[in-house]
């Protein structure tokens, strides 16, 4: 049965006020279009989890969607500070839970594997462990040494952007893999957004490239350019200019609100947003193809 639906339908069916939402993607494949749809639908009191909240959560926090943030690095990658998030945290208006990158991904790994927690070796750094009561210790039953533990993270909804998927949600990814797979397996409901919807035959021609199987996916949405201003390997480049611009836009709430009005509320969806960026931006982000050598699976 086909799981294809519009992004608006997927968000309205699976993202509820108060949910814990994980928009996956480590710098690569960040599903900005889904974040913008959540803003347009006025979802509230969300707990937003991501290793790097990135601009997507800065925008969702600015739009008033979030009650709490779970993260491991709140910077604007390659630029500096994530101003809105930082301001809200400093003002005490946003709850937060903080880990290191490994703590964060270990929480997802436990959630994805159906385990209650994950053990990690000690790093010698004491202060985060002291500050976050969710970071604990247990005795390794084999050596008697302490290991550090973090609890499983099982988001209500995981939103994962991919290069291509079929109508069942079998999804193939290449390039930086981040926490895409763990986020999908850890989440209760998985929404796949894809640059391209392809036939099942295309997926079956290269099964090793399938990161997420359709059997854990609830909805599949075709959303070309979903990841802008982040990128999709082989499809379009990262829009570093926008990452720099956001640093200016986010200096002031009035310009942030104007930006949200124009680029989120003022467009119907990802297609209109992409067209609005204009041909100069499209040309700047275009990538020349470079193909992998084909592999031989054998005709058995």
């Amino acid at each position, binding site marked *: 049965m086909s799981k294809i639906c519009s992004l608006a339908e997927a968000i309205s069916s699976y993202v509820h006020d108060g949910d814990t939402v994980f928009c996956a993607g480590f710098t690569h494949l960040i599903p900005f279009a889904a974040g913008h749809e959540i803003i347009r639908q006025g979802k509230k009191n969300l707990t937003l989890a991501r290793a790097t909240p990135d601009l997507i959560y800065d925008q969702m926090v600015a739009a008033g969607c979030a009650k709490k943030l779970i993260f491991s690095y709140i910077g604007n990658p390659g630029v500096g500070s994530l101003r809105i998030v930082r301001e809200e945290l400093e003002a005490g208006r946003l709850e937060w839970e903080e880990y*290191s990158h*490994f703590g964060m991904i270990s929480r*997802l*790994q436990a959630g994805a594997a159906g385990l209650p927690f994950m053990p990690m070796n*000690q*790093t010698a*750094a004491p202060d985060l462990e002291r500050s976050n009561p969710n970071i604990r210790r247990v005795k390794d039953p084999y050596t008697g040494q302490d290991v550090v533990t973090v609890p499983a993270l099982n988001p209500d909804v995981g939103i994962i952007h991919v290069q291509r998927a079929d109508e069942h949600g079998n999804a193939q990814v290449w390039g930086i893999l981040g926490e895409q797979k*763990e986020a999908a397996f850890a989440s209760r409901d998985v929404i796949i957004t894809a640059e391209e919807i392809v036939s099942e035959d295309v997926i079956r021609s290269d099964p090793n490239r399938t990161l997420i199987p359709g059997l854990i996916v609830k909805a599949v949405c075709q959303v070309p350019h979903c990841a802008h201003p982040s990128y999709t390997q082989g499809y379009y*480049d*990262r829009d570093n200019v926008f990452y720099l611009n956001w640093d200016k836009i986010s200096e002031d709430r009035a310009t942030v609100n104007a930006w949200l009005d124009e680029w989120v509320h003022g467009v119907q969806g990802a297609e209109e947003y992409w067209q609005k960026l204009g041909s100069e931006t499209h040309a700047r982000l275009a990538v020349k193809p470079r193909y992998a050598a084909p592999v031989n699976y054998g005709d058995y």
Partner: protein
Amino acid sequence: MSDLTYTASELMCINAARLLRDGDVVFVGVGLPNLACNLARRTHAPNLQLIYEAGVIGARPSRLPLSIGDPTLVTGAVSVCGMFDIFSQYLQRGNIDVGFLGGAQIDRFGNINATIIGGDYQHPKVRLPGSGGSQEIAGWANRCYIITPHQKRRFPEKVDFITSAGFLNGRAQRELTGARGGGPLVVVTNLGLLEPDANGELVLSALHPGCTLEQVRENTGWQVRTSGQVSTTEPPLPSELQLLREELDPGGIYLKGS
């Protein structure tokens, strides 16, 4: 050579590059560490293996990466893996020789703060980005190098928050935790090099040409001591500067600074 001018960033980058040994497996960040690693690979360490936190192994970036997950890192790399694998199988398992670190504050024992300045954790005066991968890099890489400009506010006697471990209150205390990595080995600044002594306290081991002990003392938040003999670093070579300026960061994005 005396008319050879260079920026503070170029000076730090070149000195950091010289610390790398051929064949090292390096966990690379963006900015100066990335430039230092690529400079070393193009000069004395052609067999350097660059591993990026985003899960890229054996990267050969053909343009300057502007974020830790730049797509240029992937194209032509040896392997790409997920975030859990890079932190567990590479870093935690002990497969990383060198990690590069930076931070808002570095203290007398090489502890790094990238979390909060002032106030307490729940009510920080200034909220910084947080650990990212640096807690694990500092804990588990065999050797760590820190690159940072030499300013008093960056070198307090004690950091406000230990995001990533140096030697805590002394080398023995770090050893007690059982963390596998050796801790910081050198701090590269625009004035010189600091290295931990037997107790893990950072002491001045070298000055860059034209820099003085007085400048170091003025810009350090504790009574910084010197190692037995303070040496002078070799000035940047024209060939090193040329590689940096013409090929690695032609736009001067990371190297222009002062």
